């Protein structure tokens, strides 16, 4: 994606494909894009798509 430093503008981000995930260790829920999801809170890779 194209973003801009200082105040990034990547346009219509809502149109990018993202999945909802839940961390099985800390129960944090987050929305992510990419092939190797990781919990942004506890850094665990023990996550599942919900």
């Amino acid at each position, binding site marked *: *994606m*194209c*973003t*801009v*430093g*200082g*105040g*990034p*503008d*990547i*346009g*219509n*981000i*809502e*149109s*990018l494909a*993202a999945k909802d995930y839940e961390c099985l260790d800390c129960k944090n829920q*987050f*929305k*992510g*894009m*990419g*092939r*190797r*999801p*990781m919990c*942004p809170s506890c850094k665990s890779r023990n996550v599942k798509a919900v």
Partner: protein
Amino acid sequence: MSILQVQECQGRLRKAMRLTLKEDEIAYLEGRKGTIAIAKSKGLFFYLETEAEERILFTEPEDLMVASSWGVGNKVKRALACTIFQLREMQAPLIVLPKGHPASPRLKVVVSIGERTRCSCQIQPGTHPEQDVLCSCDEFHHMEIIGRPGGAEILGLAEEESNIAIQKL
């Protein structure tokens, strides 16, 4: 770095090049009007913040961060390195401006994060959602930058127009 092949494209010589790039290094491609910086994403994740929600962008270890700016010289290189450093080392969030925000035309650096980046001079900076397109000067138009183990491959680099330097980030 090594040159893989040189081809003619639209009347200009274009070369394919492989760069060796360590995780603590940054590569600069400096042309006549613009500069592009390349660094490894180190497999980290990045925060994208909109008015409505937060999204996390996950990367692979060999993925790249590619930053582009419309200018040349040390000041521009420092701005590119600073942007990459903030995002990667400080985990600074990417604040997503709504379309048409008055700050958009004032922004100086654009960034693409992922396995592959295609440079284009035919898009408005910061206004397109495609994951692999990066706004750049026309001299980098059609250039493609791909993450490879231990470095990056650059396809379509204009033969006569770019200086390449690799430095510690």
